[in-house]
C-alpha cells in the first residue's frame, strides 16, 4: 500500500467543491460575458458581436496604416568605462535593513541593479539568499519612498533638516534625546555613533529590533558574559533539536542554517548517514515541516518542555535537576529525545526560539551538559546582527512617558506599528520633538515633525561585521535616486564633517588593515576586499559556561507563571511568515504574492486555527472571527491548518500596515499588540461573526490528480537498499520467446515509445532536485519572478487561479510520521487517511515544480500553431509571438506548469501592483527576457537567457562551459543547494551523475514524457540515535 498524500483539507475530505474544481484545467470560463454585458445585467447579443468585430477590423486597419515610429539611439556623451551596454556588471555589497542581513552580489545592467544573488565567499550566505532579500531590490525603485527632507510638512534642504536636529541636540541636558535605531552591524556606524554621542551627550542610543532575540542575548550574557549568539553548526550536528525555533525559516540566520542543515542531510550509497532532526513546536513551522520527527506542545508550556528536557538530560548526565512539574509529550518524546541527544553528545545541538532569558539559560545548560560547546556551538566568531534588548526598549518607553526625553530621533524603526506597546509609543511620541529618518513613511514617522529620506542599502557606502571578525563591505550599485542620505552620512552631517562617507570608510579600513597585519599594499588590499565583498578572519572570542542557579530559574519562571500545567486556555501565537517577516518589506508586491510555504496563502494574514479548534467552534476556511486576547479585539478570517497544537491559534506579523503603499496598505491585521516575550497570549474569546472572507490560497491549484509525485523512504531502508521508496513504473513487453521483459521508461529512455527518438548532439539541459535538501522556503519562487519578469497579478487573480509564477512549491501532507521509530504507518482502504484523529501530527513534503522540459512533451503535440516546439538542446521552447492562446498546451501538461496571460499586466490598471506598471518599477525588469503580452502562454524556460549567455562565454573562451557555470535563477538562490542544473551530455557533470542515482525518479514518468527534471527521493531519518 502506498502512503496517501494530500495538499489541503478539502482534498483530504474530498469536498464537493474540491472534486469539481480539480477536474477543471482553468478555474473559470472565459470572462466574455462580463466583457460584453453592460454591467446592468444586460446580456450581449449578435449586434454587439458584430459591433466589436467591425471595430476590431477598422482599428486593426487604422493601426496598420500608422507609420513606423522613428526611434532614437542616444549614446553617452562620456561613456563610463565600466559600463558596456547589454553586458551585466556585478558588484559585491551588503544588504541590511534592520532585520535581514546578507552579503550579496548585485547584478546591474546599464547602471541599474536588477537582481541580487548571495555572495559565495560569505559564510553567512554561501551563495544563497532568502526570499525577502531577493525581493528587496525592488525597494530601490519605489515611487513611494520619501524623496526630500521635510520639516513640519514643508520641503526642506538637508542643511535645514540637520540644523533642526543639531539645535535640539546641542545644549540639551545629557540623556535627553532618545535615538532609536535598529541593530548596528557596521563598524563604521558604530564608531561614528560613538563620536556623535561624545559630541552630543544629550543622545541616549537604544536599539530596537522589530523581532528581537533579546532572551538569548540576556541568557548568553549571563552564561558567557557575551551578549551575542555563538556560531551554530547544524552541519556538524548528528542530532538536532529545535524547540519552537524556526531556524530554517526566520530564526537568527536562516540562510546560513539552511545550507548547513541540508549539507548534513545528503546520504550516499557509500555513507548512508545523515543528521536526525527533531522538532518540538506549537505551530507548523517551515523547520518543523522538514523535521524527521515532530511533536507539538501547548504554547504556554514551552518553558515546562525545556525544563523537563533539562531534567531528562540531567538525569542521564547525573546532574541536579529542576524542581518543576513533570510534563511529557506524545510518545515520551522528551525522554526519548534526551536519550538521543545524550547518545550524540558532543555532536548534538539544541536550539530554542523562546525570548524568555530563563528558558534560554536552561537551553545553554542542556547544551553544556551535552558537551556541545566548542563543537556545534562555537564562540570564536559570535553572531552579532541582532542586538536589541527588550528591557532597554521598555525602559526607554517609560522614560519617554515620564518626560525624560525632549526629543526623539527615529532611525528606520517603527515602534508605533511593530511593538506590542505601539499605542503607548504613539501617545508618547506626540508629546516630544520627533525626527524621522526612513526609507518610507510609516506609522511612527507620521508623528515626526521633521522627516528625512534614507538611502537604500544598494545606494550606500558602508560596511558590516555580522559576526566577530567577519567583515562585509557595502558598495553602492546605483547613485541615490532621490535626495536621500545614508545614516552614516547623516551622522557625518550632524558632526559637521565635510568628508565623503567613502573616504571615511576607506580611512577606517586603513586603520583596520594595520590591525589585521595588512600593512604592505593597502590599495591592493582595498581593491580585493571591495571585489570579494567579504573578509573573514577567525574570531578570537572565548567564552566558558558559567553555570546558573537552578532554584533561581525555577522561581523566576514560577513568578512569570510559565510553569502552569493546568491551563486550558486557548493560546494565540504571533509568528512571522517567510515572505513577510516583520513587514518592513510589505510594500513589495513580489513578497505579498509569494505563497506562504506552509499555508500556500498569499496577499493576506489570517488566523491559523487547529483542526480540533475548527471542529469544536464550527469554523471553516474563510469564516470571519472576532478574537479577543489580552484586551485587544480584532476581526480576522480563519484558515484551518493541520499540524497546529490542538488549542492554538496563530497570527502572522507584518500585516495591517497603514503606510505599506499600493501593495501592502490595509492587507490583513496587525498582530504586534499580541507580541509577547513568552511567545503567546491567552485568548479570552473567539466568535464567528457570520461573515466570510476569501483567502487566496494556491495549494489546490494545478492539481495532478492523485498521481504519485513525491517519493520518500527512511534512512534505515535507504541503507539497506538505496532504491527503496523509489518504485519506478515499468511496461511488460512480450519477447519473441514468449517471456516478458520489464522496460522502465524513466530509466532507459526510448526503450519503448511511440515517439520519434530525439538526438541531442550538443547539449542536453537537465535538472535534478533533491527533495531531501529542499526545505520549501520559496526563495526560488521570488528569484524566478525577478529574473524572468513574471508579473504580479494580485489577490483577485490568485483567487481566480491565475497566478503567473513559473515555479511553484507543492506542499504535501501525510499522517504517517510519528517519530516513534515506526517507519511508516500504512494505509488501507478502510482507513484511507490514517491519523486523521491526530491532526497536529502531520508530516510535510515540499516539491518545487517548474516546466519539466519533457523530451516527449505533450504540450508540443497539441499546439495547432507550433508555438511550443522542441529545441536541439532538449528545451521545450515557448515562442510567444507565435502563440494564439488556445491553451491546449496547458490542458495537456501533466505537471500543470503553463501559465496564460489573461490580461495585459503591464498597463491594465487592475494590476496596479505589477512593478512593470510604473516608470521606476520598470527599471527592475531583466532586459534579456521578453515581457509577455496578453493572450500568450508562458512557462519556465530553464532560464534560457542564462544558458545562451553561458554558451557564449564558452565560445569566448573556446571551450565547453564548465559544469556549474550556467545556473538557473532558482538554483542560484537556493539556500539549500537542492537544485542542480547542467548538461546531461557531459558525463562529468553533476546532473548526469545525479540522474544515475538510485534515488532519482521522474514525476509521472509512466506517461513516458521523459522529463528533463528529475527528483531525488526524500529520506527521513526515523530511527532514534542509539548510544
Amino acid at each position: 500500500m502506498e502512503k496517501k498524500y494530500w495538499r489541503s483539507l478539502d482534498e483530504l475530505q474530498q469536498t464537493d467543491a474540491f472534486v469539481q474544481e480539480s477536474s477543471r484545467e482553468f478555474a473559470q470560463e472565459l470572462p466574455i460575458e462580463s466583457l460584453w454585458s453592460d454591467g446592468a445585467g444586460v446580456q450581449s447579443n449578435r449586434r454587439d458581436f458584430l459591433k466589436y468585430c467591425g471595430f476590431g477590423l477598422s482599428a486593426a486597419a487604422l493601426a496598420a496604416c500608422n507609420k513606423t515610429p522613428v526611434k532614437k539611439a542616444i549614446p553617452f556623451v562620456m561613456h563610463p568605462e565600466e559600463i558596456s551596454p547589454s553586458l551585466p556588471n556585478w558588484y559585491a555589497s551588503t544588504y541590511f535593513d534592520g532585520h535581514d542581513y546578507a552579503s550579496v552580489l548585485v547584478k546591474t545592467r546599464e547602471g541599474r541593479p536588477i537582481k541580487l544573488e548571495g555572495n559565495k565567499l560569505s559564510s553567512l550566505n554561501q551563495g544563497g539568499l532568502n526570499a525577502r532579500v531577493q525581493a528587496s531590490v525592488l525597494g530601490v525603485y519605489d515611487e513611494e519612498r520619501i524623496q526630500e527632507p521635510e520639516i513640519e510638512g514643508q520641503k526642506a534642504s538637508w542643511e535645514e533638516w540637520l540644523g533642526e536636529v543639531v539645535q535640539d541636540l546641542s545644549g540639551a541636558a545629557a540623556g535627553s534625546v532618545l535615538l532609536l535605531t535598529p541593530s548596528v552591524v557596521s563598524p563604521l556606524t558604530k564608531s561614528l555613533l560613538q563620536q556623535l554621542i561624545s559630541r552630543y551627550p544629550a543622545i541616549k542610543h537604544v536599539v530596537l529590533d522589530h523581532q528581537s532575540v533579546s532572551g538569548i542575548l540576556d541568557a548568553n550574557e549571563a552564561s558567557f558574559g557575551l551578549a551575542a549568539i555563538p556560531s551554530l553548526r547544524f552541519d556538524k550536528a548528528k542530532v538536532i533539536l529545535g524547540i519552537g525555533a524556526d531556524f530554517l525559516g526566520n530564526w537568527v540566520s536562516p540562510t546560513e542554517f539552511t545550507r548547513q542543515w541540508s549539507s548534513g542531510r545528503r546520504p550516499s550509497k557509500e555513507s548512508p548517514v545523515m543528521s536526525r532532526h527533531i522538532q518540538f513546536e506549537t505551530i507548523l513551522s517551515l523547520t518543523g515541516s522538514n523535521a524527521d520527527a515532530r511533536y507539538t506542545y501547548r504554547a504556554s508550556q514551552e518553558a515546562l518542555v525545556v525544563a523537563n528536557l533539562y531534567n531528562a538530560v540531567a538525569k542521564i548526565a547525573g546532574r541536579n535537576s529542576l524542581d518543576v512539574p513533570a510534563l511529557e509529550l506524545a510518545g515520551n518524546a522528551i525522554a526519548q529525545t534526551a536519550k538521543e541527544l545524550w547518545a550524540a553528545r558532543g555532536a548534538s545541538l539544541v536550539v530554542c526560539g523562546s525570548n524568555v532569558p530563563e528558558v534560554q539559560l536552561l537551553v545553554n545548560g542542556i547544551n553544556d551538559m551535552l558537551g556541545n560547546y566548542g563543537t556545534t556551538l562555537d564562540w570564536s566568531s559570535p553572531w552579532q546582527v541582532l542586538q536589541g534588548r527588550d528591557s532597554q526598549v521598555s525602559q526607554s518607553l517609560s522614560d519617554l512617558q515620564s518626560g525624560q526625553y525632549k526629543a526623539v530621533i527615529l532611525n528606520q524603526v517603527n515602534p508605533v506599528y511593530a511593538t506590542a506597546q505601539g499605542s503607548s509609543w504613539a501617545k508618547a511620541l506626540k508629546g516630544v520633538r520627533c525626527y524621522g529618518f526612513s526609507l518610507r513613511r510609516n506609522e511612527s514617522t507620521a508623528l515626526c515633525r521633521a522627516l528625512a529620506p534614507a538611502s537604500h542599502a544598494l545606494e550606500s557606502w558602508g560596511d558590516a561585521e555580522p559576526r566577530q571578525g567577519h567583515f562585509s563591505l557595502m558598495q553602492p550599485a546605483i547613485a541615490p535616486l532621490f535626495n536621500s542620505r545614508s545614516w552614516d552620512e547623516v551622522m557625518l552631517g550632524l558632526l559637521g564633517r565635510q568628508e565623503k562617507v567613502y573616504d571615511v570608510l576607506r580611512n577606517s579600513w586603513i586603520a583596520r588593515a594595520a590591525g589585521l597585519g595588512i600593512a604592505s599594499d593597502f590599495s591592493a588590499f582595498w581593491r580585493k576586499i571591495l571585489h570579494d565583498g567579504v573578509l573573514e578572519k577567525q574570531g578570537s572570542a572565548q567564552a566558558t559556561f558559567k553555570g546558573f542557579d537552578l532554584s533561581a530559574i525555577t522561581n523566576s519562571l514560577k513568578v512569570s507563571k510559565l510553569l502552569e500545567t493546568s491551563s486550558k486556555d486557548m493560546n494565540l501565537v504571533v509568528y512571522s511568515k517567510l515572505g513577510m517577516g516583520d513587514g518592513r518589506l510589505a510594500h513589495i508586491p513580489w513578497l505579498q504574492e509569494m505563497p506562504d510555504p506552509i499555508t500556500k496563502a498569499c496577499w493576506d494574514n489570517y488566523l491559523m486555527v487547529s483542526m480540533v479548534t475548527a471542529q469544536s467552534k464550527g469554523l471553516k476556511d474563510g469564516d470571519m472571527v472576532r478574537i479577543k486576547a489580552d484586551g485587544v479585539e480584532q476581526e480576522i478570517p480563519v484558515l484551518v491548518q493541520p499540524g497546529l497544537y490542538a488549542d492554538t491559534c496563530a497570527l502572522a506579523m507584518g500585516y495591517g500596515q497603514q503606510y505599506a503603499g499600493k501593495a501592502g496598505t490595509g492587507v490583513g491585521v496587525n498582530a504586534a499588540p499580541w507580541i509577547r516575550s513568552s511567545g503567546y497570549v491567552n485568548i479570552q474569546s473567539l466568535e464567528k461573526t457570520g461573515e466570510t472572507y476569501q483567502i487566496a490560497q494556491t495549494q489546490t491549484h494545478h492539481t495532478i490528480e492523485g498521481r504519485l509525485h513525491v517519493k520518500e523512504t527512511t534512512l534505515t531502508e535507504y541503507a539497506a537498499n538505496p532504491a527503496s521508496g523509489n518504485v519506478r513504473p515499468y511496461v511488460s513487453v512480450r519477447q519473441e520467446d514468449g517471456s516478458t521483459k520489464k522496460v522502465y521508461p524513466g530509466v532507459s529512455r526510448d526503450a519503448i515509445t511511440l515517439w520519434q527518438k530525439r538526438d541531442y548532439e550538443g547539449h542536453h539541459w537537465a535538472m535534478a532536485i533533491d527533495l531531501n535538501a529542499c526545505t520549501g522556503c520559496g526563495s526560488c519562487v521570488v528569484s524566478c519572478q525577478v529574473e524572468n519578469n513574471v508579473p504580479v497579478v494580485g489577490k483577485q487573480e490568485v483567487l481566480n487561479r491565475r497566478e503567473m509564477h513559473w515555479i511553484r512549491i507543492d506542499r504535501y501532507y501525510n499522517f504517517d510520521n510519528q517519530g516513534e521509530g515506526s517507519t511508516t504507518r500504512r494505509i488501507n482502504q478502510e482507513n484511507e487517511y490514517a491519523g486523521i484523529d491526530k491532526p497536529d501530527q502531520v508530516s510535510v513534503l515540499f516539491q518545487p515544480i517548474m516546466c519539466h522540459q519533457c523530451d516527449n512533451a505533450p504540450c508540443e503535440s497539441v499546439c495547432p500553431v507550433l508555438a511550443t516546439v522542441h529545441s536541439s538542446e532538449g528545451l521545450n521552447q515557448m515562442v510567444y509571438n507565435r502563440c494564439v492562446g488556445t491553451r491546449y498546451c496547458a490542458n495537456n501538461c501533466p505537471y500543470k506548469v503553463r501559465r496564460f496571460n489573461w490580461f495585459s499586466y503591464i498597463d491594465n490598471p487592475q494590476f496596479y501592483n505589477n512593478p512593470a506598471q510604473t516608470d521606476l518599477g520598470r527599471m527592475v525588469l531583466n532586459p534579456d527576457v521578453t515581457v509577455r503580452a496578453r493572450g500568450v502562454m508562458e512557462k519556465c524556460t530553464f532560464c534560457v537567457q542564462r544558458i545562451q549567455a553561458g554558451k557564449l562565454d564558452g565560445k569566448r573562451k573556446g571551450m565547453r562551459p564548465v559544469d556549474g557555470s550556467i545556473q538557473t535563477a532558482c538554483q542560484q538562490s537556493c539556500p539549500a543547494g537542492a537544485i542542480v542544473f547542467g548538461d546531461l551530455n557531459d558525463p562529468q557533470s553533476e546532473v548526469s551523475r545525479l540522474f544515475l542515482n538510485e534515488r532519482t525518479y521522474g514525476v509521472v514518468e509512466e506517461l513516458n514524457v521523459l522529463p528533463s527534471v528529475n527528483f531525488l527521493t526524500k529520506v527521513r531519518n526515523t530511527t532514534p540515535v542509539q548510544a
Partner: protein
Amino acid sequence: MPKTRDFGAWRLFLPGGKPFLLYPSRPKLSLMILSRLLTVLGRGALSIFLLHSFIAPQVVVAQPNGAELFANNCASCHKIHEDLVGPALKGVEQRRDQAWLLKWIRNSQAVIASGDPYAVKLYEKWNKSAMTAFDWSDEEIIAVLAYIKEEGAKAPVAAAGTGDGAGTGGSGSGNAGEFTSLTMWVVLFAAGIIVLLLSLLQRQYRLLYEERLATGRIPQGELRQFAWALRPKPLHLVGGGLTLILVSGIGWGVDMASNIGIQQGYQPTQPIAFSHELHAGAHEIACTYCHTGAERGKSATIPSVNVCMNCHNQIKKESPEIKKILTAYETNTPIEWVRIHNLPDFGYFNHYQHYKVAGIQCQKCHGPIEKMTEVYQHSQLTMGWCINCHRETKVNLDNGYYQQVHGNSEAFKQAVADKGLTIANLGGLDCAKCHY
C-alpha cells in the same frame, strides 16, 4: 485529308481548367517559327528561376594578424604613407629600434615622462596628443610592425577599399534584392512577349480559318474552336479586366502586408552628417574602433561623443558638423541619432556571437557601409533573412567550444566530411536561440 507535320503540341489551360489541345492540321511556316520562339522563351524564363535559387552568398572569415590589429587599433590615428592624427608609420623601424617601439606602444606617456628626448620632441610636434596605451604581447606588436613594413614597401594606394574590416566582404549576397526585382522584370517581359505571340498566333489561325471558309472547305474540330475561342467579345473584356484588377489588387495587398515592418532601404537624415564613406572607407578606420560593443556583447553600440573627440579635438575643428560634436561635448548633451536598424523586441541578436565568434564581417548584414555617405538599412532584417543565413553559413570550427560540445557526435563528423557544418546543423534554427 492533308498530311500533317508534327512540330509539337501545346497544352493551354484556360480559366475553366480544361486543357485545350492544339494540333494544327496544316501549319504554315510563320506558325512554326512562332511556336519555336515560345518554347525558347519559356525555357529561358525557367532557367533564370533555377539560376536564382542556386546562388549562395559567401562567408568571409577573419584571420587574426598584424593587419587586423593595425586596422582595429592604429588606423584611426595613423596611416602608413601619410600623416593623420599621428605620423605616417612607413619606415618607423628605421627611425627607432624595436625595444623602444615596444615600450612606446605599450605606454607612450611613461616614455615621455622618463624624459626620452626623441619621445618628448615627438609629443611636442604632434600637439601633445597622447597615444593610447596598448596592452599587447611582444608577438602582437611585432606582427603590427611587420605589417607596417610590408605595407610600407608597397606604393601608396590612392583609393581606399582594401582595408580589413572596412573594404572587403560586402560583395557576397548584397544584390539579392536587386536580383529578385530583375528576375521579376524579365519574367514580366517574357510573359508580355508570350501574350503578344499568342495573339499573333491566334490571328494567324483566324486568317487560316477564314481562308478555308472562303475556299468552301468547312473547318473542323480544334481549328474552329481555337480560332473563335479567343475572339474578343466586349463582355469578356470587361470581365477579364475586372478579374485582372482584382487579382493584382490582392497580389499588391499581400505584397504590402508582407512588407509591414520591413524597413529595408530606410535612410533617415541624421542630426550630424556623419559619413561612413569618409571614416570607414577613405580613412579605413576599423568598425570596432567606434562600435566597440561588437567586441564585447550584444549591442555594437553607437560611439559616445568622447570617442569622436579622440580625433576631432585635432581634426577639422572648424567644420560646422564637427562643431555640433563639440557643442554636445561641452554642453554635455547627448546626440540623438535616428535608429536605423530596429529589430523587434522579441528577437535577440548578439553582435559578439556573429562578429567575434563566427567571424562574420559587418558588411554581411550592413551592406557596403564603407561606401555609404548616409547609412541606410541594407538588409531586410526579417526572420526569413536570418534563417536563410543560418542555413547556408558554415560554422567557424576553429573554436574549441564546437569541438568539445559537438565534436563527438556522428552527425557532426558526417556533416563536416560532407560539405561543412552549417549553423542549422548545430541547432541554429531553434526558436529559443533568438526568442526568449
